[in-house]
């Protein structure tokens, strides 16, 4: 079967790739484009480690077909810092010790950024429920929630 040609924008750069029609976006991002910051923890949409933004929508890239990215804009963790400056969320995760092993961190950051774009002033409960699709086995979530709340405060100014 002929491979599909897909044209997208990834982290601001135009990008095209060939993929099988049943190949996941995660597989293309990691294995073809070598953007390995997006992680595979389960491939069933349960852990959130593969979270990316697709046209401004938070998706599990393991549950998204690569061909669905045609003509769309993909944002991954590699595009989160801006011109050498860490995003406030990235900085707050480090400052609050909100990461340990770090394998879940890219997914949490993508998901948290999506939350704050929709809701700049979330309650603790809203943060916890929004991030319930991302598993972290190291931190017990305490410092992650603190970091997101603190980032929200700083982003509101």
């Amino acid at each position, binding site marked *: 079967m002929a491979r599909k040609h897909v044209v997208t924008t990834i982290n601001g750069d135009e990008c095209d790739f060939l993929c099988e029609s049943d190949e996941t976006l995660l597989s293309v991002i990691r294995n073809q484009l070598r953007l390995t910051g997006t992680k595979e*923890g389960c491939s*069933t949409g349960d*852990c959130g480690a593969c979270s990316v933004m697709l046209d401004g929508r938070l998706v599990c890239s393991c549950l998204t077909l690569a061909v669905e990215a045609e003509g769309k804009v993909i944002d991954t963790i590699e595009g989160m*810092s801006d011109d050498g400056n860490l995003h406030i969320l990235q900085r707050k995760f480090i400052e609050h010790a909100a990461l340990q*092993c770090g394998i879940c961190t*890219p997914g949490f950051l993508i998901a948290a950024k999506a939350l704050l774009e929709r809701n700049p002033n979330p309650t603790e409960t809203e943060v916890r429920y929004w991030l319930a699709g991302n*598993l972290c*086995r190291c931190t*017990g979530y305490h410092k992650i929630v603190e970091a997101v709340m603190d980032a929200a405060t700083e982003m509101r100014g």
Partner: protein
Amino acid sequence: MSDFVAYEDKKLKTIGTRPLRPDGVDKVTGRARYGADINLPGQLYGSVLRSPHAHAKIKSIDVSKAKALTGVKAVITSKDFEDMPSQVIPVGELVANFRDVTRNVMAREKVLYDGHAVAAVAATSEVIAKKAINLIKVEYEVLPHVIDVADAMNEDAPLLDENQFTQGEIRVLGGDTTKEPVTDKPSNIAKRLTFVKGDIDSGFKDAHLILERVFATKPVHQGYIEPHASVASYTEDGQVELYTCTQGHFTIRAQCAKLLSMDVSKIKVIPTELGGGFGGKNNVYLEPLAITLSKIARRPVKMVMSRNEVFRASGPSPAGRTYVKLGLNKKGKIIAADAQIDMQSGAFPGTPLGQATITCFTRYDIENVRVIGHDVISNRPKVAAYRAPGAPVAAFGVESVIDEAAKKLSIDPIDIRILNAAKEGTQTYYGVKFPRIGFEETLQKAKQHKNYQIPLKENQGRGVATGFWMNIGMDTTASLNVNDDGTIAVSVGTIDVAGGSRASLAMMVAEEFGIDSDKVRVTTGDTSQLGFNFVTAGSRGTFAGGIVSVLAARDAIEECKLRAAKTWNVKVEEVVWENGFARPASANVGPFEPLSLSDIARNATRTGGPIAGHCEKNVQGAGPSFGTQIVDVEVDKETGSVKILRHTIVQDAGKAIHPAYVEGQYQGGAVQGIGWALNEEYIYGEDGRLQNPGFLDYRVPVASDVPFIDVEIVEVPNPYHPYGVRGIGEVPIIPPTAAIANAINDAIGVRFETLPLSPPKVLAAIIGS
């Protein structure tokens, strides 16, 4: 040199502060490279065929169709691995029976659990590798299986190994260790270990209150988010380069060398960033397969487990059945304690039996004790360590019975523990007499904690439980180089298993030199760069890694003093090191301006060459850690759902080098314990197959399941660490199961003796009562 490195009480500049972790930026930007992020030029992709049966004889394996598939470069089965005799031998400081290890990585005569590896292939793409796996034909003769530990101990249980007989050992405190006669009938019980202190019969005779209960826990998985991943490259001259995510690259090397009959020096293991391990990444699974496939294909081979494979084929922690009997006097003093812990070890012997039995009652000073442990095999994946391996199984029972005793005697649950608490000088039943420990301090501080005073409402309850872990030192190495600008590079053989040990080791080295910690860069060296290191487990990373880093720093500082003496043309005894400078020991030495570390480093070529320090040591003096946790719950009587309202941890760290990372260990461990208490379990069907090998049905806690976890760090310095460090990672997971069960009892009056306390079980009990 003494085996111990003494604690020094001194004013500290860096230790106890909260600098940013050096691995932070890599981890928030996606740069950090984990196991599955490694790719080598020309690599093939490996895949494993796994048994669908819990127990079956392998009658034949036909790989011809798989081999014939275009793109397949290698197919392996057990025929590609040497058989190993049954003997327990030390390898890489681990003790293992390689007859079992070789059978666990690739089944030989029989498959022993659902998910057991049967064959593996390497192909030019993942898709082709998976296709090839499906072309392998295995003929099985299905055998009766046994899953549950209690069933496996029955005399008529299906036997996993007809040549296994129970080996028993009795260790009497102050007396002999005796071997029990080996059973004459084969059994699934591999081992029985008994500890005896005093005389429990006379203790129970004098008791005012005797409680006797049986508890059961389920196996739970470590649940690291990073699946196992390895990339191996075997070259034409027989050298191996292996990238793998592990807690112990030196022991992975040792195990691979033994399994593949290779020289240790021919295998270089490069540990990747570790995406969580918690004890589950000490063992070989993919590594020997990837090396063997690469040897045949003569190309690098990358292998990554799926989540399904992680659950079915890598080690969960053991389940256990725990019998507990306590005898107390009227005041609540425990005068006799008896326990039997039946630990399920999976398909091969080797459950953390020693740890379960040793930690069982050891938080308390009890005159008469007996603990019996059984190591029992059944048709499940071979268990691996999981944070305080074995301890939670025992503690769930013991801490539940103490809670019941406190209620029966109308004593506060913390007071009864203070009354019985082990302290400095307490003689444990396993032999150790405690040095200075901080258990009582954690209990006192827990009792005073504001959360312990908050009034509870209807259907709410409060539970208390405690935990203990002995901690370990073991073989550890560090190599330190002073760069020519006076900054420092330290290479250690311990893995930063997530807790931030690269930061805390840098802080200790900076403290020794008297420089800023951001001038010290700590990295993990590969196996070709350093002497042997034991696995980073048992909470030894910051303790043992810290000791060797400090000693390597002291070694380099001595050299710096020599260089200053040479520069000044004085004796080395006339030079002291203070706050980052070599100074004359007194005004009599001469009018010399102090030399900074960078002054000395810049001149190193002229004074003798590069300056370095190193340390290779079997580290002794690990300080036991103790903790007390208080949990408040609310039980929804309509659904049986248990909500954690508050969770409070008070634990002795000895000294918190980086307090934020200590808090992180406490909080993370406790939430793993919450998962163990409320939801997590391996569920097997009648067919012996695992029914929930995924994160949807194996429910680990998510952010909305838990509250903020309140932490209070107690600091009672370990006398055998220069900064007083105790290992702290294990203890936090121990108390939650019992603390939550005790809280539920407090809320609704029902005492649960089996885990997990999931809504259906709690609801059934509410309806039943």
